[in-house]
């Protein structure tokens, strides 16, 4: 008679004890991977019991016996490692585990080389449980392992380039697609010579640290060689003094290479101003006054592109443009006779000189592009199949082509 109610009472009293919060499993602290230091990472297993009203607090101290300071607080059903957070070859925790990164802050500075002690408090209502104390020491890393795939691709592409150059040296007869704009260079220079009017060549808005400006200066060298042979006047107004200095040397060398050092004029390259629209106004003035027969716009451009090309078009000049500034391409295409789009500008030096080494580089670039196109098709197919069959196995392949930080 007494036993059943007593058992029921014990069950009722013991129910909270039976439902006690479990301590976080697999809790560990480690130095954050692939970072500049002053940061620690915390990892622990996910639990089916994780929910919004169960709170996790992170406490840290610089001594094992404390005093511990609370650094963060969040619901227990948050802070998971999601697909795409880390590459499979450099992940601090499995997908689905909890992961928290603690960076140095004014509240709690983290010094490299010094051990820190971390523990978690899980609280739900009146109940709470502490994890074990985990120790970790922060240190800066020398290599970002998450970007290993990036480095491998860069090295592979470099290898392909060098192999293509070696192949081109052995067999220099590499066919190149016709680029109308570059074929027209000779025509433009001939036209200027016949009309007795100068050639205007612009190297764009960029400095020598921009690849498009370097490409523009290389083309200038080729153009200057032809100009030297035809004995035509060349004008190269500049926005950047360093580019001007480089172009002066390039043009001088081109005249020497063409066997016409006497025809070289020091003033052919001159500085106007660094300001965008002041430069544009000055060049427009040159176009309207001196009426060059051929205008070359090579390099990177911004809003001034249409102002330059439309003015040039109004003077009746033949205009050849080449830029990697895709936002200005529509203006060049509508106002110029020929436009080199994007990488055609970079290919120009190879095209004009037909040097085997330079032509070989183009082939290497083409291999790179073919690889990217294949990856696009393969990646799209694998990602789609993965979604359809609800499997993450293809992520092992897809991760190889992702950019992780």
């Amino acid at each position, binding site marked *: 008679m007494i036993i059943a109610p007593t058992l029921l009472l014990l069950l009722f009293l013991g129910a909270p004890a039976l439902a006690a919060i479990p301590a976080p499993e697999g809790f560990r602290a480690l130095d954050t991977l692939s970072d500049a230091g002053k940061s620690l990472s915390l990892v622990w297993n996910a639990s089916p019991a994780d929910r919004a009203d169960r709170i996790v607090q992170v406490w840290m101290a610089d001594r094992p016996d404390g005093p511990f300071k609370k650094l963060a607080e969040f619901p227990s059903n948050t802070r998971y490692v999601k697909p795409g957070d880390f590459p499979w070859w450099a992940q601090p925790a499995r997908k689905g585990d909890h992961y928290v990164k603690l960076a140095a802050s*004014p509240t709690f500075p983290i010094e490299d080389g010094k051990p820190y002690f971390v523990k978690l408090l899980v609280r739900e209502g009146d109940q709470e449980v502490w994890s074990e104390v985990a120790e970790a020491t922060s240190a800066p890393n020398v290599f970002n392992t998450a970007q290993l795939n990036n480095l491998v691709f860069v090295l592979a592409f470099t290898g392909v380039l060098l192999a293509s150059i070696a192949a081109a040296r052995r067999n220099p007869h590499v066919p190149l697609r016709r680029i109308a704009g570059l074929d027209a260079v000779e025509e433009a220079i001939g036209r200027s010579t016949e009309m007795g009017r100068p050639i205007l060549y612009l190297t764009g808005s960029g400095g020598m640290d921009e690849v498009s400006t370097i490409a523009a200066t290389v083309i200038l060298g080729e153009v200057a060689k032809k100009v030297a042979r035809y004995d035509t006047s060349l004008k190269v107004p500049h926005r950047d003094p360093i580019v001007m200095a480089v172009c002066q040397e390039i043009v001088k060398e081109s005249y020497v290479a063409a066997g016409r050092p006497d025809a070289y004029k020091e003033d052919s390259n001159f500085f106007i101003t660094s300001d*965008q629209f002041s430069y544009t106004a000055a060049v427009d003035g040159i176009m309207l006054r001196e009426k060059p027969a051929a205008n070359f716009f090579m390099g990177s451009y*911004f*809003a001034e592109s249409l102002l330059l090309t439309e003015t040039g078009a109004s003077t009746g000049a033949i205009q050849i443009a080449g830029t990697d500034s895709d*936002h200005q391409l529509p203006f060049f295409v509508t106002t110029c006779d020929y436009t080199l789009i994007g990488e055609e500008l970079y290919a120009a030096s190879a095209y004009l000189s037909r040097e085997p080494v330079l032509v070989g580089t183009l082939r290497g670039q083409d291999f790179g592009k073919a690889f990217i196109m294949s990856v696009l098709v393969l990646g799209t197919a694998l990602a789609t199949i993965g979604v359809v069959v609800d499997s993450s196995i293809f992520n092992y392949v897809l991760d190889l082509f992702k950019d992780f930080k």
Partner: protein
Amino acid sequence: MIGIDRRIIFLLIAAAVLLPLLRPFGLPIKVSPEVRGVYEYIEALPERSVFLLSFDFDPSSKPELEPQAVALLRHAFRKNLRVIGMTHWLTGTGLADDVFSRVAAETGKERGKDYVFLGWSPGAGSLIIAMGQDLYKAFPSDYTKTPTQGMPVLEGVRSLRDVNYMVSLAAGSSGIEMWYVFGKDKYRFEMAGGSTGVIAPGLYPFLRSGQINGLIGGLQGAAEYETLIKRKGTATAGMDAQSATHFVIIILVLLCNMFYFVLRGEKGKAR
């Protein structure tokens, strides 16, 4: 007619720009998802969050980008965010400071307490890296030469990692792409872009891939943002002129094609 004097076209454009400014017709402005993305992110930021606004333009792009800056600042100040301003373009410094002073005065915000304009420092990408390591080393003082260390508005802000949201208003290079590569990619703050109408289409790949979470393109984008914050400004006023100009160009292009086909037909008949 097909070889019409350019000056007639220029006159028509001038009329299309001027007449609506004198006699506005005021049409509703539809808001695009890319502009809404910026608005909703700022709207969701808690009070006193840190908002970095980079004025990466100069006076030539003022007509398109200043209305964007004004609208963003009005929104940020209304939300009581802490605003940090700066610029990568030396020639834009005076303009940027003027915008800050004007909008702060109308919203009752105080320099040093609610906002700070850091001014310009050389370096472009390396300046962003320097700001990502230590903001106070990158900018020891603000535009008014007040030391940044200890400023109430910068309390708790050590570097770009402490920025909650960032918008770059860009007219060209030293803009959005640079902020993404050297800033968001390394220091993991969320960012959006505002740009001139010309470079906006080139930024859609960044928007589609999530590298920026919103894009305010040109005067139209600024007008959309003014609609969202329910405060009309110069962008909304300019949309009538922009509408008229677009239509004049469309009519001219259609007329030109009409004459072209008529001429081609006549040449064909003559043969």
